[in-house]
């Protein structure tokens, strides 16, 4: 990290702390950073914070995992078969523009107030970037690269595994990364609207009792989780692409 990158946050927190200590702004609206940290510490010690984090991560993980799995496999099939794409495309274009949160009432009706309805919403939010990127990735494979493989003796299965998959993998991984952000957006919305646990719920609960430091803790944790997840996805992306370059995909995927 460049040194310049830390100057602005430090300045911001410094001024913020000053404003808070001098009570230039009512602490109800803007508690000092140290007050927020103290709140975070007590939430962590009581274990409450980790329960909410755990619940949110579970829902996001399930929904995102399903979205990734379905998105990649269906995307490969649809990218490979023009027929299948033509069949499914209208359906996809119908469901895709619907905001995931708009589906919540119906999903609660169908799957109840438990985790099921929430996981489905996350699934919906994560699915389409993965699906569309996978389709684009598979369809975007250079036909001449495929021909080169054919002239070297590759049969259709080998062309698929050794050329189509690796060639489309960068695009697929991009889709998987975009979805991480969307899944995080969706989980907060869902938990704010209809949950008794999770980070979204923590925010709403804090609002009800005017516990502003708690609200900030929720926001901080969400920011940190989103950031970490994206980092993780980035590292995985780089590693997978290197791994991928170094092996043959034989028997893999």
């Amino acid at each position, binding site marked *: 990290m460049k040194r310049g990158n830390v100057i602005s946050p430090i300045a911001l927190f410094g001024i913020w702390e000053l404003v808070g200590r001098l009570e230039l702004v009512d602490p109800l609206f803007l508690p000092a950073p140290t007050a927020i940290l103290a709140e975070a510490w007590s939430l962590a010690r009581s274990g409450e914070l980790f329960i909410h984090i755990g619940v949110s991560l579970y829902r996001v993980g399930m929904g995102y995992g399903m979205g990734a799995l379905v998105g990649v496999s269906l995307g490969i099939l649809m990218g490979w078969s023009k027929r299948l794409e033509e069949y499914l495309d209208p359906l996809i274009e119908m469901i895709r523009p619907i905001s995931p949160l708009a589906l919540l009432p119906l999903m609660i009706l169908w799957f109840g107030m438990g985790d099921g309805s929430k996981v489905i919403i996350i699934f919906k939010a994560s699915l389409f970037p993965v699906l569309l990127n996978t389709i684009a990735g598979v369809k975007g494979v250079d036909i001449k690269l495929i021909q080169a493989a054919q002239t*070297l003796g590759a049969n259709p299965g080998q062309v698929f595994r050794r050329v189509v998959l690796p060639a489309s993998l960068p695009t697929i991984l991009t889709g998987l990364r975009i979805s991480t952000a969307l899944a995080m957006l969706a989980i907060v919305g869902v938990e704010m609207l209809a949950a008794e646990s999770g980070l979204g719920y923590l925010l709403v609960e804090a609002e009800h009792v005017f516990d502003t430091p708690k609200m900030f803790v929720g926001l901080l944790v969400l920011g940190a989780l989103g950031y970490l997840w994206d980092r993780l996805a980035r590292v995985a992306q780089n590693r997978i692409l290197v791994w991928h370059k170094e092996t043959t995909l034989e028997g893999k995927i």
Partner: protein
Amino acid sequence: MPLIDARNVSKVFGDGQGENTTALDDFNLVVVEKEFVSIIGPSGCGKSTFLLLLAGLELVTSGDLLLDGQPVNGPDPGHAIVFQEYLLFPWRTVWKNIEFGPEVRGAPKNKRAEVVSKYIKLVGLEGVEGRYPHELSGGMKQRVAIARALANEPKVILMDEPFGSLDALTRENMQVELLRIWQENRCTVIFVTHSIEEAVFLSDRLVVMGTHPGRVKKIFPIPFPRPRKREIISSADFVALAAGVKGLILEEEK
């Protein structure tokens, strides 16, 4: 028996909307084993099309295209093609790119390693086996593409303007290398180029194609003894032969 026998070959491309392009019409060419044949002609005369037919990536519309006495009916590792754009697999190292053919054909690991290192040596790529294509210069990429094609030990190697995107010096260097490789390996080469000098320098015979429709206009035997040195290109015989070819092509382009 000729290795390649093209008899009255024609190829018509349809664009799906009723517009047809006759890329080749009544194209005839016989190539014997171990021959180095170059094809030259104006843009769009069907040179690439002929190579794609030989590679089995396109099928003839009419006529007979025989390879080793058998009609070509699809891609086959016995007739390898090297494209101008190299078309290396970017996710594979130099070594793995060259190994691709033997690998998909199920050669055992030790045999594969043997073949790959042989061709890495032949094309002069020692020391860069572990690099990825994006870490190579144009000339090196083309060497990888050639080695990858050779690793299947094909009877015929088809090259479509393989040196077209190289700078002049690298190109001259690659021509000399190609002759050396061919001399050591002695497979049959069909070589498409835009450069008369390159074609005359490399080939046993030079096919000049005419356009509208694509066909063979004239075949020049190139009598210079082998092995050839770059210096022959300034000899009187060479210059005269090249001028003759040029005259014929200019006439075609009028």
